[in-house]
């Protein structure tokens, strides 16, 4: 038995230690790794009716991945332009939502982190309360605001700023607002957490040495907050790219989110292998993108948990 296991058992006892270890293994292996592996397996098999599963036609194939790139065989196109466009647009939109969220949340996190007192606690509470309301309800509430006869349009037309109602939904503004709003906390809290531990004297020292406010942020605060910024950005990006409810409810009719395509494959077409292949392409692309960006900004994996 390796040393750390021995130590672990000595600390927790054989019975308790085994139960806890078993639960953790069940959670990681049973609930996360195994289902994902079976998805991976699915994605390399053809979509067969149940009687043929395990039969001679059930062989490994790249068919499902080819479909995303080249479209249906004999479909008359060189590429699966529609699905690839949705894939590309989803990633770009998720990056945009992440950056927008960062710009919005950094000042808030900085303010919360560097000020003390009761009003800070009230602010934090006000940020949390919207999350008591479930996702669907929140999304539909945004429709009330952004809809054609919604609050915002009534206001804009009523005050004469616009002549006709603006279609926030068709122009994806409602979608971006919904996604941004949904993940604000996931961006604020990691950044707030690191900035709270930044010694205020460092900010004053930089100021005393002649730095204007933006250089203080650039040279002192942001480098210090980098681990928080990267965990916030990673979470918001991953969750935006993988969101389903918000695009379903707030997206315009023409703009599909890639997750909606995946959902259609699984649900409407009952084509699990195809859906699994799409989902895995999305997952792997997102992970690679995050790793590349972390490399670019010299963030270590170890810093992210901070």
């Amino acid at each position, binding site marked *: 038995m390796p040393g750390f296991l021995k130590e672990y058992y000595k600390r927790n006892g054989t019975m308790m230690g085994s139960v806890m270890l078993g639960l953790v293994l069940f959670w990681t292996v049973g609930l996360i790794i195994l289902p994902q592996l079976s998805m991976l397996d699915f994605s390399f098999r053809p979509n067969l009716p149940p009687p043929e599963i395990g039969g001679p036609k059930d062989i490994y194939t790249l068919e499902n991945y080819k479909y995303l790139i080249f479209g249906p065989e004999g479909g008359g196109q060189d590429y699966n332009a529609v699905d690839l466009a949705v894939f590309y647009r989803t990633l770009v939109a998720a990056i945009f939502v992440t950056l927008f969220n960062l710009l919005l949340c950094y000042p808030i996190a900085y303010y919360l982190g560097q000020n003390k007192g009761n009003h800070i606690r009230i602010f934090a509470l006000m940020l949390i309360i919207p999350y008591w309301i479930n996702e669907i309800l929140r999304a539909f509430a945004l429709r009330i605001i952004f809809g054609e006869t919604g609050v915002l349009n009534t206001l804009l037309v009523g005050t004469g700023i616009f002549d006709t109602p603006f279609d926030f939904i068709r122009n994806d503004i409602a979608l971006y607002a919904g996604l941004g709003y949904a993940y604000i906390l996931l961006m604020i809290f990691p950044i707030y957490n690191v900035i709270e531990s930044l010694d205020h004297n460092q900010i*004053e020292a930089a100021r*005393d*040495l002649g730095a*204007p406010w933006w250089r203080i942020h650039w040279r002192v605060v942001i480098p210090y907050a980098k681990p928080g910024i990267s965990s916030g950005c990673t979470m918001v990006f991953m969750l935006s790219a993988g969101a389903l409810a918000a695009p379903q409810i707030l997206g315009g009719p023409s703009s599909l989110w890639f997750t909606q395509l995946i959902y259609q494959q699984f649900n409407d077409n009952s084509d699990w292998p195809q859906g699994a292949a799409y989902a895995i392409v999305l997952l792997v692309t997102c992970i690679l993108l995050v790793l590349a960006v972390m490399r670019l900004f010299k963030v270590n994996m170890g810093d992210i948990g901070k």
Partner: protein
Amino acid sequence: MSAGVGVDLENLWIRFGDFVAVRDANVNIKGGDFFSFLGPSGCGKTTILRAVSGFLEPSEGNVLIGGNNMKGIGPNKRPTALIFQNLALFPLMKVWENITFSMEIAGASARDRRKRADELLDMIALSGQGDKLPSELSGGQRQRVAIARALCAEPDVLLLDEPLSALDLKLRQHMRTELREIQKRVGITFIYITHDQGEALTMSDDIAVMRAGVIDQIGDGKAIYNDPATAFAASFVGENNVFRGKVSKLSGNEALISTNRSGDLLARISTANHGKLKVGDDAMMFIRPEALSLATSGSTGDNFVTAKVTHEEFEGNTFNIFTEGDGGKEIKVSIPNLGQSFDDHTGQPITLEYEASNAVVVPAGELANE
């Protein structure tokens, strides 16, 4: 060397809500001086320093640097550099980047910064350590980096907020000498804050003694030590024995104080109180432990004190005798150890003798740590 830039505080008041942190401070600090604010914790020292560096606007009054009123000028625009109590080095920047941060802000090239950093590292005896991170240095080395970082900004006035308080005793004493040498070399004005009277006395040209937002006395070390203006200054700076009583007779600048236990005692009135004491006033007389000695003949008079010895101790360089005193406080006598034999007096009455010129009278007032 230039005369340096002076700092003046004119009728400076600083309030936090109803609380008065600094009350009507008037200080003139000469250019090129090493000036200390000395006072107990919470008396408003940091508050004054923050008003000079520009982090705090005074409620009333003015801060002048080099004769220019600093009202409305932010900390990044003042010719001051502040060394924080906890140093506040930038942990993610290398030592040389820390030191030349002000040059980076001013847009200097990396080559110029590197060169200047090397010069300053030589000066603080840390040559070749520029590529380390602050966390890789010892406490004393970090201290010196903070000084170099502040000096690199070429301030006219360097402000130091108890920069040695985090160091151990040995290092602290070493850094005192070093700070003083650096100040002489660069020739700029240093404003130093401390609650350690030893630090203030050894390093400063002039000292301001502060008590609860009020400046009690300004003067050089000798004046503060030998000629205190208030009971607080007398009891805060160095060890002192206090005798409470009433003024019973005045002659010139000497006063006779009548005490309950020790009878009439003669002493010199401190310079700041000349002409201010009247017969019948409550007064306090202070005598340093080293200014008292055992009377050779059993004489009595107005420069003799008789008291019973409570205990004795041997401190190496001195024998200390403690006797019952006026107002519940012990009287401490320090006798230099010159190798003489020393009798045990515990429980016996002894007669102590002093020179009237070594005893000083001030109006009765608040004592330090009462």
